[in-house]
C-alpha cells in the first residue's frame, strides 16, 4: 500500500506542471526513527500534542491546522478547531474524516500504530528538552516546506531568551530558584527542560542535576535550601502558607513567589517553542518582586 502511494506520488510529481521547490517529495525522520515521505508540503495538518500545535503556529502555519487534541490551547484560535481527544482516546474516525495529509502525534500516543496502519503520514515527535525542541522545529518546518522559517524561528527564540536574560537584574543573577511541578512535592531540577530555561536566564536551581529531572523531594530540603524565588502555579501558591514550616522560608516572608497563571505556567512546563514566552513571563514577574538579600 505504501509503495503504491509512493509510486503515485512520484508519477504525479513528474507529470503535473509544478512550481520549482514544492513538487519535490520531502523525506522526514521522526523521533521513533521512522521515515515519512510527503509528496508536497503539508496543507492539512492534525496535531495531537500541544507543543506540536504551538510549533506549527509559531511557524506561521496555524491556518493549515484542521484538527488538534483536547489539550492544545495556544493560540486561542486553535480551540475553535475540531478537538480530537487526548493521548489515550483519540477519535480516529473523526480524524480520518478531516482528510489530513500529515498527522503530528506524541511518541507515547496510543493512536500512532492505528493511524500508520490506516496509511496516514504520521510523524511521532515528543520534545523533552531544548535540543529536542530545536530538532522538532526543524522537522516540522521541513514538513511545511518552510525550512528557512524554521531556522529563523530558532534564531528568534535564542534572541528572545538572551534578551530576557539581559533584563534579569544583577541582584538575581545566579540565585537559586525552586520550581514545583506537582504537590508532594515534585520539583523541576536542573536536568529538566524547565531547568534549561532557567539556566538560559542566568538563574540557578536548588535541585542539582544529580537528583534527576523531576525528583520527589523531602519538603525539608526546600526549607534548608532557602531558594531565592518560588515558581508555582497560582492555585498552589494560594495554599503555600498552610504547609507546615513553609512560612519560615525567606522567599515566602518577602513575597518572592511567582504564582503563574495557567497560560505562562503551561508555556513553562511544556517543552516546546514557547520557552521564550515562559522566560519572558518569568522575568516580568521577577522585576515586580523585591530583590533577594
Amino acid at each position: 500500500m505504501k509503495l503504491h502511494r509512493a509510486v503515485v506520488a512520484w508519477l504525479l510529481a513528474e507529470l503535473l506542471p509544478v512550481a520549482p521547490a514544492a513538487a519535490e517529495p520531502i523525506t522526514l525522520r521522526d523521533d521513533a526513527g521512522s521515515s515519512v515521505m510527503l509528496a508536497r508540503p503539508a496543507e492539512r495538518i492534525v496535531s495531537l500534542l500541544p507543543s506540536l500545535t504551538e510549533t506549527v503556529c509559531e511557524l506561521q502555519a496555524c491556518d493549515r491546522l484542521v484538527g488538534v487534541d483536547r489539550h492544545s490551547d495556544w493560540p486561542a484560535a486553535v480551540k475553535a478547531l475540531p478537538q480530537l481527544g487526548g493521548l489515550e482516546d483519540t477519535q480516529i474516525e473523526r480524524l480520518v474524516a478531516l482528510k489530513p495529509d500529515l498527522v503530528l502525534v506524541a511518541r507515547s500516543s496510543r493512536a500512532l500504530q492505528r493511524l500508520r496502519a490506516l496509511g496516514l503520514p504520521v510523524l511521532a515527535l515528543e520534545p523533552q528538552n531544548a535540543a529536542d525542541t530545536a530538532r522538532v522545529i526543524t522537522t516540522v518546518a521541513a514538513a511545511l516546506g518552510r525550512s528557512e522559517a524554521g531556522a529563523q524561528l530558532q534564531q528568534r527564540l535564542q534572541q528572545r531568551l538572551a534578551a530576557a536574560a539581559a533584563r534579569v537584574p544583577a541582584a538575581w543573577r545566579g540565585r537559586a530558584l525552586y520550581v514545583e511541578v506537582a504537590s508532594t512535592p515534585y520539583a523541576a531540577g536542573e536536568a529538566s527542560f524547565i531547568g534549561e530555561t532557567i539556566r538560559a536566564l542566568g538563574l540557578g536551581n536548588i535541585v542539582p542535576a544529580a537528583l534527576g529531572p523531576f525528583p520527589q523531594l523531602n519538603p525539608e530540603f526546600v526549607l534548608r535550601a532557602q531558594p531565592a524565588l518560588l515558581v508555582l502555579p497560582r492555585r498552589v501558591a494560594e495554599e503555600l502558607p498552610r504547609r507546615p514550616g513553609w512560612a519560615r522560608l525567606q522567599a515566602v516572608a518577602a513575597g518572592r513567589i511567582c504564582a503563574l497563571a495557567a497560560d505562562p505556567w503551561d508555556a513553562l512546563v511544556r517543552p516546546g517553542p514557547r520557552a521564550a514566552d515562559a522566560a519572558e513571563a518569568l522575568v516580568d514577574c521577577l522585576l515586580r518582586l523585591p530583590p533577594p538579600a
Partner: protein
Amino acid sequence: MNTLVRRLVATRTAASPMRLAAALLLVLLALVLLGLAAGAEGLSTAWAQDAALIGDIRAPRTLGAALAGALLGLAGALSQGLFRNPLADPYLLGTAAGAGLAVTLVLAAGGLLGVELGLATGGALARLGLSGAAFVGAIGGMALTLVMARGATRPLTLLLAGVVVGVLLTALGDLLVLASPEALRGQRVFMIGSTSFLGWDSAAALALGLAVALPLAVRLARVLDALVLGEASATSLGLALPRLRLVLVALLALATGCAVAQVGLVAFVGLVAPHLVRRLVVVRHGALLALSALAGAVLLLGADVAARVLVAPQELPVGVLTAVFGGAYLLLLLWRRGRLA
C-alpha cells in the same frame, strides 16, 4: 526447620496481648525517635540546629503518620470483623472512591473555567480545602452505599453496594480527569498517598478522629465477637444487629475518612495490621481493634521514616512502601501456609 516452626506456633498462641502491646509501643517509640531525626539529609541527630525543622515539620509529620496509621489499622480491623472476611480493607464501602472523587472535583474546579456544574459545587468544596473535601467525600461515598443497600441489614448487600458505588464514583472521577489535566496529577498523588505535608493541624484532626472512633469501637467490639456466631445466633442473643451494624459502619467511615483526608489512599495498612495482630495473639475483638490501631501506627510510621531516609533528599512515595511491606508480608503468610500444610 519443622521443630522451629512448631515452636513458633506454640509461642504464638501463648503470647499475651499485653506483651504484644508493650512490644508494639516500644517499636513505635523507637520509630518516633527515628522520625524526629529523619530529615533531608537522612538521619541526623543535630537536634539543636534543626529545632525549627523538627518542631515545624518532623514532629507533626511523625505524629500524623502514626495517628493516620492507627486510624487505618482500626478501620481495617472493623471492616474485617463486620464482614467476617480477612481480605476486607477500610476502602470497601465507597469511602475511597468518594474521597477520590471529591478531591478530583476540587482540583478540577480550581483549573476549569467553563464547566458550570464544576464551579457551582467546586466552589464550596474549594473553601473546605482538599482535606475537608476528601473527608466529606469519604462520608458521602459511604452514605451512598448505605442508601443503595437500604441500610446495614445484610452484609452481602452492603458489600455489593459498596463495590457498585466504588466503580461508579471512580468512573465519574475518571471522566472529570479527562476534561481537566491538572486534576489528573493531583488525583494520582492522592491515590498513592502522601505524608509529606502533615502539619500540626492535620495531626490534631487525626488525633480527634482517633479519640472519638477508638473508644467507641472498642466498646462495641462485642458485637463483632457475636457476629462470629452468625447472624441468627447473634440475634438470638438479643442484639439489635441492623442498628448496631449501622453504628459500626459509621465508625468505619469516620476512621477511614479522617485518615484518607490527611494522607490520601495509602494501601495495605488497613489490610495487614489486623492480620499481623491475629498471627501473634489470640484475642477477642476489643483487644484486636486496639492492637490493630497500634500495629497500623507502627506500619505507617515505619513506611514514612523509610520513605524519608532511603533516598534522601528525595523521598519515595509512602504508599509504594506500604504496598511493598504489605505485599511482602502477605507473601510470607502464603509461604508459611504452604510449608505447614
